[in-house]
């Protein structure tokens, strides 16, 4: 069976600044992969190329097929993207926003049907956002917004979920909520998840596989214990750290050693 996502020698440059220099990544169906790396290492660019809003150099295959051969409607049924931050220019209710996830399932001339309503409702229940359905998106808190965005992504009934630092603007409680939800979706529904992440410790707790980007290449790729070593982190982030196992004795956690 073909992997869900496969990139080969993937490169990308904004004008003359190279961001990705030959990324080799393969994600099997049902995997949950966290992409780590410092600012500017190419995490967001990678997510944007995988979601087909940027064209990279090299090959990207989804389910064994070149990404360029997909139409946008088809792509949006295959994967969904949860952005770092969502902004609306006009007042939409949460129900309307989630319903937009169904756009590629019904005719552009028609209104949503019964099936669309059912799927939207189910994804809102799953993300605990049904009670928000009548509220306006721009009036929600960061945590509520992110739940709505995940609900919309789920309403797309995707095989693959791409997330770009989904917890960047959230407090600790909401960060944990989002990651627990992702873990549950991955386990219970077999959803393939690829997320660009900031927080190495949360990544280690919730993601079974991590890929560390450095200078536009995958520098390490494997389980948290394989990737999050003192040596790797010192090399990639250029800070001094200690890595210990968490109380359960399974997951590595990174402790920062300040230089004073």
């Amino acid at each position: 069976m073909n992997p869900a996502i496969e990139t080969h020698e993937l490169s990308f440059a904004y004008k003359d600044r190279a961001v990705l220099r030959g990324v080799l990544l393969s994600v099997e169906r049902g995997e949950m992969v966290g992409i780590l790396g410092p600012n500017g290492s190419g995490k967001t660019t990678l997510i944007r190329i995988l979601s087909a809003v940027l064209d990279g150099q090299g090959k990207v295959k989804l389910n064994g097929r070149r990404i360029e051969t997909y139409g946008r409607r088809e792509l949006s049924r295959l994967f969904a993207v949860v952005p770092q931050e969502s902004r609306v220019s006009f007042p939409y209710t949460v129900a309307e926003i989630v319903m937009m996830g169904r756009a590629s399932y019904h005719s552009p001339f028609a209104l949503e049907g019964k099936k669309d309503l059912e799927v939207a409702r189910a994804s809102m229940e799953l993300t605990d956002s049904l009670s928000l359905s009548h509220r306006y998106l721009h009036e929600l808190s960061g945590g509520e917004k992110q739940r709505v965005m995940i609900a919309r992504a789920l309403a797309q009934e995707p095989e693959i979920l791409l997330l770009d630092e989904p917890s960047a603007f959230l407090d600790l409680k909401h960060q944990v909520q989002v990651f627990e939800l992702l873990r549950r979706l991955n386990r219970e529904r077999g959803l393939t998840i690829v997320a660009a992440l900031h927080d190495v410790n949360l990544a280690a707790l919730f993601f079974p596989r991590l890929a560390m980007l450095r200078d536009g290449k995958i520098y390490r790729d494997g389980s948290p214990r394989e990737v999050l070593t003192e040596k790797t982190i010192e090399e990639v982030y250029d800070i001094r750290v200690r890595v210990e196992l968490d109380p359960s004795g399974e997951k590595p956690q990174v402790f920062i050693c300040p230089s004073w």
Partner: protein
Amino acid sequence: MKVLDRRKMLWVNGALLALLVISIIGCALLGPVRLDFSQALQNIFAANPDAEILYRARLPRVLLGVAIGGGMAACGVVLQALLGNPLACPQMLGVSGGASLGGVLGLVFLPHWLLPIGGGLLGEISWVPLAAFLGALLSMMLVYRFSLFHGRLHPYHLLLSGVIFNSFIAAVIMFLNSIVDFYQAQGLLFWLMGSLSTRAYLTVAFIWAYIIFGFLWLWTKGLSLNLITLGEEAAMQLGVETGALQRQIFVASSLMIGAMVSVSGMIGFVGLMVPHVMRLFVGSDHRLLLPASFLAGGIFLAWADTIARILLAPAELPVGIITAFFGGPFFLFLLYREGTRRLAV
């Protein structure tokens, strides 16, 4: 869970359509000269002053006003959505300037023997809107191109370059006006000021054709317009071919703006205000917002023009004065009452 359903679609559009029909009849009956309605209806074909005024003077004017009000409002809706900016309207993007320049160039430089075909009437309606359309389309593409960096649209650049482009165009038009001969200059000024003053049915029909065609084209994009308000990238990820959408919207709205500018000049305020007011009443779903704004824009301009005809009768006010005088305070009131809740987010 409440989203747009068929009942709301039918109910809102039906009510507005009924109101529009009532407005057309009402506005045609109102005017400085009192009409005997039964007289006007009885003898359509006999020489009959009541019927003459109703059918030759007022009705075509009201119908033209409806088309232009509706067209302006519809263009306002789609430009605001496409640019994700509540300030967007034809005037602010340089489009109207471009359309005016196109029309002026058409009037000045198109071979004169082309213009008088059909006693001036057919010439006027077939060439000037086309030239205005090309002017609108070119300026829209130009202003858009100037605001595109790394494949992303920058809304502030867009507004700035649109405003600057409009003043540049105004200078070019004034320059042209100074170099043509006196009679042409008179004609140009008259055309530029624009008004809804009475036109032949053939002109009105041509304008309606442009506007209905453009409107229906835009309406088929209702769902994509919802998605594009989330930003270009989000819209792509939800399945919209954004490049094709932008191109189609540019062409369709330029067609409408070109047609409108070619008869009436730019009538301010309708394109900016009506979309916001309607969003307040019917929500932001463009599958409903677009037709509702079209109908409401038609109603609004029909009444504004009627007031412009009556207020200082027998003199006539430019309709733009009425739209801004009544529309402005009403809009400010709404803006203040709603705060940041449902108008500008």
